[in-house]
């Protein structure tokens, strides 16, 4: 019986494993302006995210979490990619990243390392792992928006 050997080197690219083993921006911020946390209750992945925003620039980010290599490397790469940019830029990256995973769109060069997660699109049950940190980021930024509307 001939059978194709499963190919996982493409899903689990070395850059993903590297972020999983040595997450960037792991830890907590002393005085974050924004915080959010989220979990995938089905599988138990967890991300807590601290963000410091000055004006509309994301100055600092740190995350704590536990979970699979996809959820944790995605968080590590997210912080690395969007830290230092504006909230508007973060939104754009978020849209590009979601398009890559949900619509299996061709990765945009703007995504940087995050492009490595494109293989996850082939594993629908794992897409939520990669999107968890972005959901948490969205919540942090939405809180910001709600506060902005109530602040004089």
């Amino acid at each position, binding site marked *: 019986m001939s*059978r*194709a050997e*499963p190919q*996982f*080197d493409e*899903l*689990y690219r*070395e850059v993903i*494993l*590297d972020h999983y*083993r040595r997450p960037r921006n792991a830890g907590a911020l002393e005085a974050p302006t924004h915080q959010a946390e989220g979990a995938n209750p*089905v*599988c*138990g*992945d*967890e991300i807590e995210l601290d963000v410091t925003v000055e004006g509309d620039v994301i100055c600092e980010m740190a995350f704590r979490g*536990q*979970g*699979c*290599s*996809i959820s944790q490397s995605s968080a590590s790469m997210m912080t690395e990619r969007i830290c230092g940019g504006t909230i508007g830029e973060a939104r754009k990256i978020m849209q590009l990243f979601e398009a890559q995973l949900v619509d299996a769109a061709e990765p945009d060069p703007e995504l940087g390392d995050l492009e490595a997660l494109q293989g996850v699109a082939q*594993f629908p*049950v*794992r897409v939520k*792992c990669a999107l968890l940190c972005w959901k948490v980021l969205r919540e942090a930024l939405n809180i910001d928006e709600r506060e902005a509307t109530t602040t004089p």
Partner: protein
Amino acid sequence: MTIDTARLREDFPILSREVNGRALVYLDNAATTQKPRAVIDALTHYYETQNANIHRGIHTLAVEATEAYEGVRAKAARHIGARNAEDIVFTRNTTESINLVARAWGDAKLREGDEIVLTLMEHHSNIVPWQLLAARTGAQLRYADIDAAGQLDLDELRSLIGERTKLVSVTHMSNVLGTINPIAEIAEMAREAGALLLVDGAQSAPHLPVDVEALGCDVFAFSAHKMLGPTGVGVLWARAGLLAEMEPFLGGGEMISIVKPEGSTWAEGPHKFEAGTPNIADVIAFGAALDYLDALGMADVREHEKRITAYAIEALEGSGGITVHGPHDVEVRGGAVSFEVDGVHPHDISTIVDAYGVAIRAGHHCAQLLMRHLSVPATNRASFYLYNEEREVDALIEALDEAKRVFGRVESRTAV
């Protein structure tokens, strides 16, 4: 007699299918088991030849359907060594059976200051109903610890059970660790304290010979779908007289005796707790599952699972970089085997082994208290049943080797 898996596997249509180009290796039996042809045929047979509502007609079909449904009560009783079919209530699942007791018994019997004793190895279905009951009544929950080997600390459990204890509710077999708890000893403790003992048998009724009289428990709950039967059928057994002491659970048709504008009286026996049209077809098909198990004999099922579980534990730990949780002695454990692969999260394992056609479970297994106790967010779990073969364990090991290789790439480079 030894179970002949090669012959027996032909009874299970799904076991001949392929997944991702490979023969299916189904090792998620603690979640639900596959169904033999006899069970599937029983469903079709009922709908094609007997379909009628039960207990409310005197036409031939209604009589036949009622007899078939009620006949399964006796089979379920026999399966767990219960004397009376009238002490068997059909529910939707183990969860509903436990919730029924929490409502129908607990609401009337518990007061502020009373205590409910549970263990850290309980499934959420044997925790959350009691948390809700505690919130309604003011009762307190106490949790018995487990030791490093994954077994209950009986001395601690004994110290938790006292005169305030009204209920002890404990799993017969852990769905994560496979641990089989010494129910008869625990029953002795509960009896001395005058507390009710509920046993969650969801993982034991499918895999062990069970005798509720010998165990000495008051209530025993289990699910059909984990023992070759269809989904949507649970069983609640209560010792003689206990059902009569309990208040109704759901109100409606079937569970009444006489309904008057000012109030109603209740049906006797299990019918008091089976409001509305029950899951007739699936209960009848569950009867076929019980017949199948009884023909094999639960002692032989247990022997087969002991063999394959011992083989799996040795193969997993022998393959390197894998730790098996829970007791390793198959005399005190069943076939739910949780394990960790060094440096690889269970979800990543599950994705990779699925590509090899191997179905295992990754996650917290509805046992978050136990996960916290083990200091892990999740585990991998392979769980066996009567149709599993050693070559399927080998297929799992081969798939795990690939996972270790994929995740070892970066590590082996950075280790230089």
